[in-house]
């Protein structure tokens, strides 16, 4: 009954063309020799050369990566704890407020999150810089991590943990040896999500960064506001390449694991 019609084929083709065309154009024109971005004047990689020599960009990349690694790691720890609390801790005083604070940042407009954190940092007289961006990113990313991890925790058989405790594990050992390996895929995807959110964030970073720290999105922002620039095209191409390679690798790894798991299950079924 599910006919795949010409109309369906056309929608998919047009839809994907719409999604990918702008990025493909960006990649092609990053190799344009002309300074006039929209006029093709032959192949060249000179914008990549200029980009790699621009120390302001390289500094911004370093700041961004530093912020993203620190905030996503912190967010993963805090978010996993929060997920544990939400799924396992039952009732406790202030639970409603807690779950509200977990979900609210997910729908909070970035401008408001940024504004409120900046007012806090100014209110307590904290110097703004890398540290304040890390605090800000950790706060909103931990909520995403906790949503991802708690969906995994819900479906996880708690009796395994109880068995570990009965067999003499301390609660920490039970977590480390039983729970963590099982929820690891969710923890890893939570970390990746937090990492990308941090890499990508312009608005919150602009509010919470002081003059001493500029992240890559802030740097891109200040140059694209003036119009299209060939250097940004080159930078975009590099970023698209990194993401594409990363996503393809991740999906190949997960496919391989799925195949291996299936094979092991079949082997187990045969031997049983």
């Amino acid at each position, binding site marked *: 009954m599910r006919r*795949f019609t010409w109309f*369906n084929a056309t929608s998919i083709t047009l839809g994907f063309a719409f999604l990918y065309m702008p990025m493909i154009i960006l990649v092609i024109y990053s190799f344009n020799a002309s300074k006039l971005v*929209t006029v093709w004047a032959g192949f060249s990689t000179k914008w990549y050369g200029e980009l790699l020599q621009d120390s302001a960009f390289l500094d911004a990349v370093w700041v961004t990566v530093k912020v993203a690694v620190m905030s996503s790691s912190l967010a993963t720890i805090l978010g996993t704890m929060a997920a544990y*609390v939400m799924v396992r801790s039952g009732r406790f005083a202030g639970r409603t407020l*807690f779950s509200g604070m977990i979900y609210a940042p997910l729908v909070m407009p*970035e401008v408001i999150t940024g504004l409120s954190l900046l007012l806090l940092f100014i209110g307590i007289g904290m110097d703004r810089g890398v540290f304040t961006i890390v605090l800000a990113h950790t706060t909103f990313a931990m909520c995403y991590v906790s949503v991802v991890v708690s969906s995994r925790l819900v479906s996880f058989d708690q009796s395994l943990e109880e068995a570990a405790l009965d067999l003499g594990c301390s609660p920490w050992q039970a977590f480390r040896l039983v729970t963590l390996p099982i929820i690891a895929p969710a923890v890893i995807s939570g970390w990746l999500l937090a990492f990308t959110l941090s890499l*990508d964030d312009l608005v919150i970073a602009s*509010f919470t960064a002081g003059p001493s720290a500029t992240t890559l999105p802030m740097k891109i922002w200040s140059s694209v506001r003036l119009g299209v620039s060939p250097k940004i095209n080159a930078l975009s191409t590099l970023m698209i390449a990194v993401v594409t390679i990363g996503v393809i690798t991740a999906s190949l790894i997960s496919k391989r694991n799925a195949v291996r798991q299936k094979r092991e299950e079949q082997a187990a079924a045969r031997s049983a």
Partner: protein
Amino acid sequence: MRRFSLISIPYLWLLALFLVPFIIVLKISLSDSALAIPPYTPTLDFSEGWAGIKAFWSELDMENFVFLTEDDLYWKAYLSSLNIAIVSTILTLLVGFPIAYAMARAPEEWRPTLLMLIILPFWTSFLIRVYSWMGILSQEGYLNQLLLSLGIISEPLVILNTNTAVYIGIVYTYLPFMILPIYAALEKLDGSLLEAAEDLGCSRTSAFWLVTVPLSKQGIIAGSFLVFIPTLGEFVIPSLLGGSKTLMIGKVLWEEFFSNRDWPVASAVAIILLLILVIPIILFQRNEQKQREAEG
């Protein structure tokens, strides 16, 4: 003890970095700026005990909110944000539904790849995705070059820096948010229901409207809210693709804060934006709950 520390660490973090900042915004929105920089009057003075707290309360006022209602810039910005968010949600639905529909009907072995291709843009920088349209839509951009060389138009179209560009940018960046929930709903749809409808004399079109659309309603609602809610406070898209006439509240808030340095007004703008968002967020939550109940 262990349980206590497990709960208290994330709890305190969120209290300190989510709730307290939010209360500060609320407080500043009710304050007057002394010199356009902190401290704002009133300041809470605990050393005077109750009298200090009372004096603090009595000095808080709604002045900034009154100011927002008097200056029609803010009215217009809220209305135009709502307008842009509604129109672009409808446009995203019109573009996204046929794609989700076709994905759900595609041969099963294609679907994981199609899904990955829909999700892939999520991982690339939002800023870059918006930026990529600047080169396409500008006066001498690729779209105008193409249309001019094909002889379809004789004058370049003005698209960049208009609301049209903002709509295109929003549809483009938020399309996956619309496609994924609709696809999830359509994929579960039982094909035999359509067969039954057609056996009972429905035309294919009316089977679509009477069976497919109602059964994917929850996906459509979820997708629409996932587009509408973030669009309302959007800042990057109207700033890069919109013109000086494109009023959106996220942009006004940013300018109020960074250019005019009027923090009390910026805070009041933020509070009202949140109040507007509360309604769609509650409706969205209710839709999700209904879906969970239907499945559970």
